[in-house]
């Protein structure tokens, strides 16, 4: 039919029916949308839950402790490791001021400092007392908790139990000490053998030349015998001190110098001293004990760093030198430091000679012994203006053909 305007339209009852239909359709549509929205919300909820679980898993699985505080110093995160270290379940910590727990005071101080100054603390070592009363070393780093939208939200502390690392450090220091003691024993043994040589020698001469009576002869025999017995004892001491035999391998001087450099780099930087290495390309093949040679170089570089002030230079070099048809390697450690007074130059290699407060006085004696064991020698030149040069001369003589 047509409306009064002449446009085609539905009859009134049909219109009414149509309106109802539209309403139904609309309601249906709305229901669909609501259901879809519900599904979305559920899914979002699920994702959020999964994400939350995921984050919690991460925090719980870390081998480091994590502690987060908000701007008011209340704890917002306290992970599993933190709980076990401090013997406090997270539930007793979350929401409470960190300051309330005295055992965590060292951490609280670091976190406050971070929040006050706005500066992250990269690595700090503290000692804390655990729940069962043990004192353990803790390595701690802190950072500001910062968000783009809300700015500073608090601070995070991440910390690790250093006990194992520390005990490893102790063990390494201990075995180094043992090694040095071993070298000391060897140097002392060598020193003792010299006067022993006189005693044994002259008492043997007495044995050969003098006969007064059987009884006196017997006395001399005893002196001779006991002198050689001392020598055997010295050999025993050396064995007991576990002086390992030299392990002879081909020496890579460049690698040796690099190793020494990297060990001493941090110390040099702290002192403001530059260490350089200059290793020649034409070094002949040399076989020796690399552990002992490295110890020599480390010792010499240490001494050089001790003697040199900020702005100075320490140079570690190795060059080839030929003497009488045999190639030698000369390793030098040169410094621009305070030099050695000429009156001391003769004595510095003597055992127990030291001008330092905390020196054993055996370093140079040991170095000399190691040089000699390699058929080489150590020499020094020094003046109070320009510094000191120690030279370790090593002959490449082990593989020479016999005459």
């Amino acid at each position, binding site marked *: 039919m047509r409306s009064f305007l002449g446009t085609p339209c539905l009859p009134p009852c049909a219109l009414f029916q149509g309106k109802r239909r539209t309403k139904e359709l609309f309601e249906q549509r709305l229901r669909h949308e609501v259901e879809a929205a519900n599904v979305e919300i559920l899914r979002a909820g699920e994702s959020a839950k999964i994400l939350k679980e995921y984050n919690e898993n991460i925090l719980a699985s870390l081998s480091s402790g994590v502690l987060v505080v908000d701007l008011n110093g209340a704890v917002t995160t306290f992970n599993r490791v933190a709980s076990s270290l401090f013997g406090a379940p997270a539930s007793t910590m979350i929401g409470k001021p960190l300051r309330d727990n005295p055992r965590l005071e060292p951490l609280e101080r670091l976190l406050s400092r971070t929040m006050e100054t706005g500066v992250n603390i990269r690595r700090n070592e503290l000692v804390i007392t655990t729940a069962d009363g043990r004192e353990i070393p803790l390595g701690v780093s802190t950072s500001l908790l910062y968000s783009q939208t809300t700015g500073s939200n608090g601070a995070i502390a991440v910390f690790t139990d250093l006990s194992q690392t520390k005990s490893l450090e102790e063990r390494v220091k201990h075995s180094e000490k043992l090694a040095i003691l071993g070298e000391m024993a060897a140097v002392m043994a060598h020193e003792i053998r*010299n006067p022993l040589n*006189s005693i*044994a020698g002259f008492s*043997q001469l007495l044995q050969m030349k003098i006969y007064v009576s059987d009884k006196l002869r017997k006395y001399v025999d005893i002196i001779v015998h006991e002198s050689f017995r001392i020598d055997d004892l010295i050999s025993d001491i050396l064995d007991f001190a576990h002086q390992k035999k030299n392990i002879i391998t081909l020496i890579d001087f460049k690698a040796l110098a690099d190793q020494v450099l990297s060990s001493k780099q941090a110390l040099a930087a702290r002192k403001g001293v530059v260490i350089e290495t200059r290793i020649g390309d034409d070094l002949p093949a040399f076989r020796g004990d690399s552990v002992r040679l490295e110890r020599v170089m480390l010792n010499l570089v240490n001494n050089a760093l001790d003697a040199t002030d900020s702005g100075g230079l320490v140079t570690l070099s190795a060059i080839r030198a030929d003497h*009488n048809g045999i190639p030698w390697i000369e390793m030098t450690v040169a410094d621009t430091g305070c030099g050695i007074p000429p009156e001391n130059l003769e004595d510095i290699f003597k055992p127990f000679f030291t001008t330092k407060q905390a020196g054993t006085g055996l370093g140079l004696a040991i170095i000399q012994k190691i040089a000699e064991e390699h058929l*080489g*020698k150590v020499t020094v030149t020094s003046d109070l203006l320009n510094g000191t040069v120690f030279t370790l001369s090593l*002959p490449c003589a082990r593989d020479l053909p016999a005459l």
Partner: protein
Amino acid sequence: MKRILVADDEVNIRLLFDEVLTEAGHEVISVATGREVVRKIIKDDYDLIILDIKMPDMNGLEVVQKIRELKKTTPIIVCSAFKHLEDDYVFNVGRVSAYITKPVNLQEFKAKVNELLA
């Protein structure tokens, strides 16, 4: 009469070797440094050289080399408190005739000397 050159930086050891060798009928010339050894070798010939390898100015190997350079065949007895360098000196470096350790056993020393002077 054989001429023997003794080199050791310790006066007591020089005295000891001097006594033993003079008593055995030899002429003994003693010096205290590597450089003096070289000086003596340049000037004269010796039938035997007794050399301490740990002298302050030149190390043992250098002295041995120098001697061999100037007098190729003179027997050398090297004397040391280090017991384990024997192989190096006798076999590897290959230039010395004998290696004795300190404290010196005089009987063994005398036997060695006789062997090398024969």
